[in-house]
């Protein structure tokens, strides 16, 4: 199993550009998450999904969009990139039964810089 994979690993965007961060997992996990990590600020939840076709906002959703058309994939879309979106983005997945919080498995991250 590859676990959770993310592409690209690094990206530099200009202000106003758009891009999609890709995330895929091969563990048949039902839940998937997107976090951003800023220096010294821990991890903040952007969006999450409890299954294909179902997504919901986290703590910091503004400026982002997600979709979950399959169990495996959970792309994060940035529209009109701004310098405030410079961060490291982590995708994670977990298998949760009966809404019990379980271990989250993280991808290697995407380091995004907006100039």
């Amino acid at each position, binding site marked *: 199993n590859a676990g959770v994979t993310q592409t690209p690993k690094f990206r530099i965007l200009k202000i106003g550009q758009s891009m999609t961060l890709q995330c895929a997992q091969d563990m048949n996990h039902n839940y998937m998450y997107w976090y951003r990590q800023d220096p010294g600020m*821990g991890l903040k939840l952007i969006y999450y999904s409890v299954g294909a076709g179902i997504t919901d906002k*986290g703590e910091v959703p503004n400026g982002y969009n997600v979709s979950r058309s399959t169990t495996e994939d959970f792309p994060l879309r940035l529209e009109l990139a701004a310098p405030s979106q410079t961060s490291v983005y982590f995708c994670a997945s977990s298998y949760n039964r009966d809404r019990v919080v379980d271990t989250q498995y993280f991808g290697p*991250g995407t380091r995004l810089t907006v100039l």
Partner: protein
Amino acid sequence: GQQVMQIPQYQHVQEGEDFTTYCNSSTTLSNIQWYKQRPGGHPVFLIQLVKSGEVKKQKRLTFQFGEAKKNSSLHITATQTTDVGTYFCAGPSNQAGTALIFGKGTTLSVSS
């Protein structure tokens, strides 16, 4: 809103010294998880505590969950250079289903 706080933010120790990080939640938690992130890496799950007063050990690491299920600690005995990284505690979010809310982490550096 719900908060998970960790102290200290940074800790430097000499190899062989002990290290402790503390985690406090503004709300009662059904469980608490600990993750480790090596420099340049991604968070990796260490352990989950569920019961009030629970203590679990992993070799030199000891994890505790408070009686009120609002605080937790991670203690490392005789640190090694391989312990370097940031340690995060995380608890279930009250707002986001089964998502986690993370503390800001404690970054441990170890000199030999």
